């Protein structure tokens, strides 16, 4: 029932290709990245132990500034997930829908504050209840106006995760009905996980 | 033989008082449950009268007691019905104040 990794990669590649007018540069070569990066697909499901030597794409782990392909199949023994997808902020709902159709469950949503690039990264983790596939969807938003649509209508579980991310990073999930402070005090107007936060 | 508790007048006056209090409550109370309570007072007045007269003046002392038993049964039945009506009324009007349900529109 669950689609194979390659089918998923294909779907996400199409999604990434459909992205129109990307704000940052990295979407320059959308389709190219798939085949090469997905080289060492064999043995992805078996070894979960760390330390098994695999020559898998060290490029993904490179400095975030370097342009990287939007869809990558990575070695789970090194990364802990199988598919690394980068989409535009407006595409997260579509990405979530693909994950939903493929039977993924929402693992978590979180942010990373890349203050050097003046960007915020929102990371959606998905796990699969029946297949051994894990999926990571990333989207980057500018640090000044961190906004992207909510995926609440696809995964209702995103409610709390998005609220938490909003708490910690100040990322606005447009369409979320209840973005009031969640883990922080009710009157909190700060976002402690931003790198420039000084308590 | 002139113990206080063997004077019929005391019981009868007390019964009259209960009746008066019940009447007053029935007039002045503005909620249905309040009126129900006042009604119970009037029932009690009747019971007390029955019992007193039965004790002191009746030839067969079981008659009054049986009547009081009947009154109690009726009172219980009345309360059950009245309360179910009150709850039904409350569902419809969101209020059980007697002044607020003066209209009888269907």
């Amino acid at each position: 029932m669950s689609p194979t990794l390659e089918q998923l990669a294909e779907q996400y590649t199409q999604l990434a290709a459909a992205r129109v007018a990307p704000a940052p540069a990295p979407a320059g070569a959308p389709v190219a990245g798939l085949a090469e990066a997905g080289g060492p697909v064999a043995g992805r499901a078996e070894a979960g132990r760390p330390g098994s030597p695999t020559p898998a794409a060290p490029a993904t782990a490179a400095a975030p500034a370097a342009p990287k392909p939007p869809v990558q199949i990575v070695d789970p023994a090194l990364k802990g997930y199988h598919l690394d997808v980068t989409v535009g902020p407006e595409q997260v709902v579509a990405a979530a829908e693909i994950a939903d159709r493929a039977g993924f469950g929402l693992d978590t949503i979180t942010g990373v504050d890349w203050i050097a690039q003046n960007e915020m990264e929102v990371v959606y983790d998905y796990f699969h209840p029946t297949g051994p596939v894990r999926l990571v969807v990333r989207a980057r938003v500018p640090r000044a106006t961190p906004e992207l649509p909510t995926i609440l209508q696809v995964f209702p579980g995103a409610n709390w995760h998005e609220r938490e991310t909003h708490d910690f990073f100040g990322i606005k999930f447009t369409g979320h009905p209840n973005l009031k402070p969640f883990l922080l005090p009710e009157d909190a107007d700060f976002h402690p996980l931003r790198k420039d936060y000084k308590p | 033989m002139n113990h206080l508790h063997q004077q019929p007048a005391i019981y009868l006056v007390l019964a009259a008082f209960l009746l008066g209090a019940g009447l007053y409550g029935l007039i002045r109370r503005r909620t249905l449950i309040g009126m129900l309570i006042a009604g119970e007072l009037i029932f009690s007045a009747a019971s007390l009268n029955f019992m007193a007269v039965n004790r002191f003046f009746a030839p067969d002392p079981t008659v009054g007691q049986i009547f009081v038993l009947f009154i109690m049964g009726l009172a219980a039945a009345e309360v059950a019905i009245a309360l179910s009506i009150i709850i039904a009324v409350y569902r419809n009007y969101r209020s059980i104040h007697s002044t607020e349900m003066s209209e009888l529109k269907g």
Partner: protein
Amino acid sequence: MNAFPFADYLVTAIFALAVGLTLVGALVAALSTRIIRGVSGLMICCVGLAGLFYFLNSPFLALMEILIYVGAVCVTIVFGVMLSEPDEPAEPEKPGRALLWGGTAAAICLAVFLGIAHLAVNAPWATPAKLTTDGSVRAIGVSLLTTYSLPFELISVVLLVAILGALVIARSGRTKE
């Protein structure tokens, strides 16, 4: 007779207690603004009445009074109170109106009370009878099943109808939602 007069005083005191409970309970039931206190008043009144019934040589009815009025009627009323939260309206009547109506009602009730009390005190009652029976349960039971069997059956029918009626009325409100 008066081998131990203190006992007489005690009896009188208990009797006075019963009368007092009845009076106070009735007053609270009729006058208090909070409905829940009204029910408590009714309860107190019924306990007092039970005491009076005991003095009227009918312990059975005294206990029935407590069982039915306190254990059933008052509880049902409190339950109704809980379901419909009826405190007296927050905004009181206009004072003049309240005085007028309250005065009228009080006058009427006082008149009724005084009239009946006058009758009760001054009526040419026969002399109180000596205690014949102790109003035992057995006597009541026998007369219920012989002389008064028809009313007895009728009252059970009434109770049955009341139960069913209460069920029907209370349910119809539910299904309407």
